[in-house]
């Protein structure tokens, strides 16, 4: 493994990303939604925290706390349980970037000079993967920070303390988010190596976020408590799947197949 080549691929991919305002905007769209929507939900609870309807909702979800207004309890529950849905972000963002990794180069006819270079498949894939995982993780962290500031801004007057980040959120952001980004990237790269249409690659790879969406929606709707131990177990499982999918992607990265098979 020559790191100079990995750096060259990484630098080039980041330069292309920075130069593509449309892609940058679409990368920010999902996390922006994932940030603004919980603010809205929390604000609706905090607006009249002792409202009858708010109390009923809190009772239904079993989140009522002793000595705390129902709205405040709901704001805290929303802040904590939004994590499952928010984790879709680091998994989805690399799909947008990595679907261009190989299929996009095929479409733009830039793949042959790249494959004719001495860079190995592993070097190319690593460079491209880092160029997807690093921005995806940074954008996730940026919007997580905004999410935290907004939620605490709403929750603090009611609870007189910060609700996020807590240990679970911190663990998820520091450990799980990069692992999920790696997973989304690996799936997109593996599909990208076999297809020549980046749009189709993106659509297929986007399916990989469905289990994450399912987890998030289930958690939010049921307000089921998934604590740090659950996310730790999830991190181990994702790390194992990451290794498998990356190994598969490396196997699928076959110069001859990429050059001679289209579709």
């Amino acid at each position, binding site marked *: 493994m020559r790191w100079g*080549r990995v750096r060259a691929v990484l630098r080039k991919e980041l330069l292309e990303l920075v130069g593509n305002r449309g892609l940058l905007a679409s990368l920010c769209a999902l996390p922006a939604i994932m940030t603004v929507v919980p603010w809205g939900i929390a604000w609706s609870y905090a607006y009249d925290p002792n409202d009858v309807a708010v109390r009923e909702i809190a009772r239904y979800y079993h989140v009522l706390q002793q000595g705390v207004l129902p709205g405040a309890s709901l704001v805290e529950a929303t802040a904590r349980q939004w994590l499952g849905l928010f984790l879709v972000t680091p998994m989805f963002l690399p799909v947008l970037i990595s679907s261009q990794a190989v299929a996009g180069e095929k479409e733009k*006819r830039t793949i042959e*000079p*790249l494959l*004719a*270079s*001495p*860079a190995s498949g592993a070097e190319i894939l690593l460079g491209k993967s880092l160029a997807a995982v690093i921005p995806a993780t940074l954008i996730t962290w940026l919007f997580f920070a905004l999410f935290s500031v907004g939620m605490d801004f709403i929750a603090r007057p009611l609870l007189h303390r910060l609700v996020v980040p807590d240990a679970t959120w911190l663990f998820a952001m520091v450990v799980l988010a990069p692992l999920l980004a790696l997973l989304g990237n690996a799936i997109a790269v593996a599909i990208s190596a076999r297809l020549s249409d980046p749009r189709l690659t993106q659509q297929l790879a986007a399916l990989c976020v469905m289990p994450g969406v399912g987890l998030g929606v289930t958690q939010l709707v049921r307000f089921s408590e998934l604590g740090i131990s659950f996310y730790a177990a999830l991190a181990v499982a994702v790390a194992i799947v990451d290794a498998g999918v990356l190994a598969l992607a490396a196997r699928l990265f076959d110069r001859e197949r990429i050059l001679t098979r289209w579709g």
Partner: protein
Amino acid sequence: MSAAIELEQLGKRFGAFTALSGVTLQVQEGEVFGLLGPNGAGKTTLTRILCGLIAPTDGSARVLGFDVASSGEALRSAVGLLTEQPGLYDRLSGWENLMYFAGLYSVPRAAAVERLERYLRLFGLWERRLERAGTYSKGMRQKLAIARALLHAPRVIFLDEPTSGLDPQAARAVRDAVAELAREGRTIVLCSHNLDEVERLCENVAVLKRSVLALAKVAELRRGRAQVDIALQADAAPLCEQAMRVPGVAKALPTGSTLTVQLDDPAAIPELVAALVQAGARICAVVPQSRALEDVYLELLGTPGERAS
């Protein structure tokens, strides 16, 4: 002089489709070698094999001593490839495009900067090096792609249609650059449909149509099956039969007092002249007609219908 490229019964199949079969040829170090053939003849497949991009299914090939089937990275480091499409990153500047490949080929930064400046100036791109490649004209893109193929100072360079889409001035600059590279001792394989260009640059050519149809020096190809126009004092028709009796004569066509003779072997011209004189012909002039490479090429490939198949 040793062989830079050696092919022995090289073949490539994609499933049931045979792209190349039994290709045997040698290219000497420092030579500019022309690879001709119609679309689909296997030129790109052969080039890809020789650049270590795809593996042969039959036979063997060595480039600079590297076995193409087993020395991928070392082989790719030693050769340069200009692909049919320039394949540039439109969002990156010309400079960034080249620096990216300098990194991929592990060219030290100082050397990369020196070479970039040299080639960008040579091809007249220096002033626009910081502009996005997407804003470049077709000719500029082609020149940038050529610079990219040369950046790592490869000893063997494969150029696929290097002057395609270039204006005459730019095409001339590219041809001069190719000649300069040849003078530096680089081995160049030129895939082209531009037969005039091949005639100007190449000493040896191979005509390919899945297998090698012809492999010779350009001059020999043109000389082979030569043609002479013999101007006579009298009507040429009666001398046709006499001319056809000479070994090596393929065809004799009279047109007034001119007898046009096609020969399989140009060495038969003195015999032909002697036979005609012996038959009583009074010869005013014997004018050898040099055939264009295009005529030879089209003759080798057969009719247009056959070529398309």
